[in-house]
């Protein structure tokens, strides 16, 4: 073997430069691999909070050179105990900017671009640029959004196999106190976030009448102030959980309420927690989960070891319990599934298309409603929408789909006959015949 020039990341080299028998498929060790990771791999870290700080540091120290980080939050005093890249003088500054700056100061050669904005503010092109996306988030909504974006790049071939060059892998970490999870999402292969959304327990919602009449806990008092009292006092003004004055107001009102009912335990941080649905974060749990995520990222990219398959749970509440579960993807998932391939002539009207679905052996759908990129092309009900969309029935579907040669369309309707009728929602891959640019040739790369 050729001698390798000394590297700052000597330990990492042991993984990347030498062959092994536990490696992933297609692993090609050598200095080229190490250098390619530096040069060609772009990683997006979503979130610059407790997990994000750890992730940026870990990824930078794992040999990644091109990192981006996106976060819409500013640094608060209460972050400082665990979001170790931040100092007291940083309070009020954007998390993404400070985190990027601090890691670049410490790890020479790494280049981190920060984005101080909402994830929804970025165009899809922004996300398509990255090789892999690592998530350090605390909300289901944000995960669901990024998942939809990443799965949206996925394309399937005519045999319903994912096209490798369109796969945008994700690594997702999350913590709640002493518990956490790390998972990999390879759209088209592993379950996506939506396939397994049931893994996330719904937020506990107290009955409003309990809050109004019989509060028993500090959280009841806070939710009373937040959900009932706020509207009573601020008619019309919507409550903004990111506005410190609003939180402060809710906190004082909750305190008064607690006093009235002789309830203990209302604090400012509990108020923040209840209102923003934040579970107390513990620095070490964040460190463990982030480390697992950074390792998986390195493994997916380099192939230096087989990846997690596919969901790791960590529980440090009593002693330590950790295990890996292999969840299976939902082939009918509306977000990551292939959908049913349908080839059409450009002249076919929406009405004929709907008729066709009823006879399609893979669908047998009756009473079909159709939606495309957020536009409701036809709705069976309610009457007000049926009326508004009826005129589309005689327009060619190709025109309604603004002449996009191939795209995803969602339909829902009834399957089965008689008493066994069941409603269902399906994803379709509509391809128009004879349009330039729908051949396989224009696809990037090729496997």
């Amino acid at each position: 073997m050729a001698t390798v020039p000394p590297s700052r990341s000597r330990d990492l080299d042991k993984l990347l430069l030498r062959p092994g028998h536990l490696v992933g498929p297609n692993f090609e060790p050598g200095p080229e691999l190490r250098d390619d990771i530096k040069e060609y791999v772009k990683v997006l870290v979503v979130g610059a909070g407790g997990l994000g700080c750890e992730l940026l540091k870990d990824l930078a120290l794992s040999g990644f050179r091109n990192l981006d980080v996106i976060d819409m939050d500013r640094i608060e005093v209460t972050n400082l105990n665990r979001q170790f890249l931040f100092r007291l003088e940083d309070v009020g500054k954007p998390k993404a900017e400070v985190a990027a700056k601090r890691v670049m100061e410490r790890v020479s050669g790494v280049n981190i671009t920060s984005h101080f904005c909402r994830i929804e503010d970025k165009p899809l092109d922004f996300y398509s640029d990255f090789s892999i996306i690592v998530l350090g988030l605390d909300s289901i909504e944000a995960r669901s959004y990024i998942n939809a974006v990443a799965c949206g790049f996925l394309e399937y071939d005519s045999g319903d196999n994912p096209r490798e060059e369109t796969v945008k892998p994700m690594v997702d970490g999350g913590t709640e106190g002493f518990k956490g999870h790390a998972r990999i999402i390879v759209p088209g292969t592993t379950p996506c976030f939506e396939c397994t959304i049931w893994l996330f327990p719904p937020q506990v919602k107290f009955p409003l009448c309990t809050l109004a009449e019989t509060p028993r806990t500090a959280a009841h008092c806070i939710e009373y102030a937040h959900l009932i009292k706020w509207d009573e006092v601020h008619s019309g003004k919507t409550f903004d959980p990111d506005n410190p004055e609003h939180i402060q107001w809710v906190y004082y009102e909750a305190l008064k309420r607690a006093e009235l009912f002789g309830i203990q335990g209302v604090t400012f941080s509990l108020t923040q927690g209840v209102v923003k649905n934040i579970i107390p974060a513990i620095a070490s749990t964040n460190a463990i989960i982030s480390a697992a995520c950074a390792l998986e990222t390195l493994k997916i990219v380099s192939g230096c070891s087989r990846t997690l398959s596919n969901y790791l749970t960590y529980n440090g509440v009593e002693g330590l319990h950790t295990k890996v579960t292999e969840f299976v993807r939902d082939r009918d998932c509306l977000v990551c599934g292939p959908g049913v391939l349908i080839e059409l002539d450009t002249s076919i009207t929406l009405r004929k298309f709907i008729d066709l679905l009823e006879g399609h052996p893979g669908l047998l759908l009756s009473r079909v409603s159709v939606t495309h990129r957020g536009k409701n092309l036809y709705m069976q009900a309610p009457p007000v929408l049926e009326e508004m969309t009826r005129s589309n029935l005689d327009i060619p579907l190709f025109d309604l789909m603004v002449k996009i040669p191939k795209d995803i369309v969602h339909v829902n309707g009834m399957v089965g006959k008689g008493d066994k009728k069941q409603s269902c929602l399906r994803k379709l891959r509509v391809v128009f015949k004879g349009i330039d640019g729908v051949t396989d040739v224009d696809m990037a790369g090729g496997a």
Partner: protein
Amino acid sequence: MIKLFKVKEKQRELAENANGKGHVKKQSAGELRLHKDISELNLPMTCIISFPNGKDDLMNFEITIRPDEGYYLGGAFLFSFQVSHIYPHEPPKVKCKTKVYHPNIDLEGNVCLNILREDWKPVLNINTVIYGLYHLFTEPNYEDPLNHDAAAVLRDNPKMFQSNVRKAMMGGYVGQTHFQRLSSFDHFFTAGTSVCKMYAMTY
């Protein structure tokens, strides 16, 4: 996957191609499921749905309920629905936009309906919620009070509750609280329905 990333990155550097796909809005799983719920709605005549932002925004809609029996006969009550992108993982947010004298609806329009909060399940749908709201008007209940006073009156003196509801719907004071006259109520009377029918329903 390094090989792939390398190829892609090189291509990107070469091309920087803007193929116009960039700003397309992704439909969330929540929107798709809601689309299904809406296209399968099967509402009674007493419930009317409308979409203030047009046919392509299903996430925000309104329901008008016109009870055809009970204390609230003759009234029309407007509810706003706000549905999140992670629906049905989370229930829709529902507010009553019509100020109403009701034990389970407060004066700010908060609604105490179990399936909107603690008993929400992803298998439930918009239809279930609308029926639930409708039932609040045919069977108001004093056991889950949001309007404490109204609940106490309903429990202790249904006759007085009936007269308070009517007072509120016709426009006037119930205790310290002023209610606007419901325009539906005008219509109700001009349409010739007799007041006796209203009294006949009281206990």
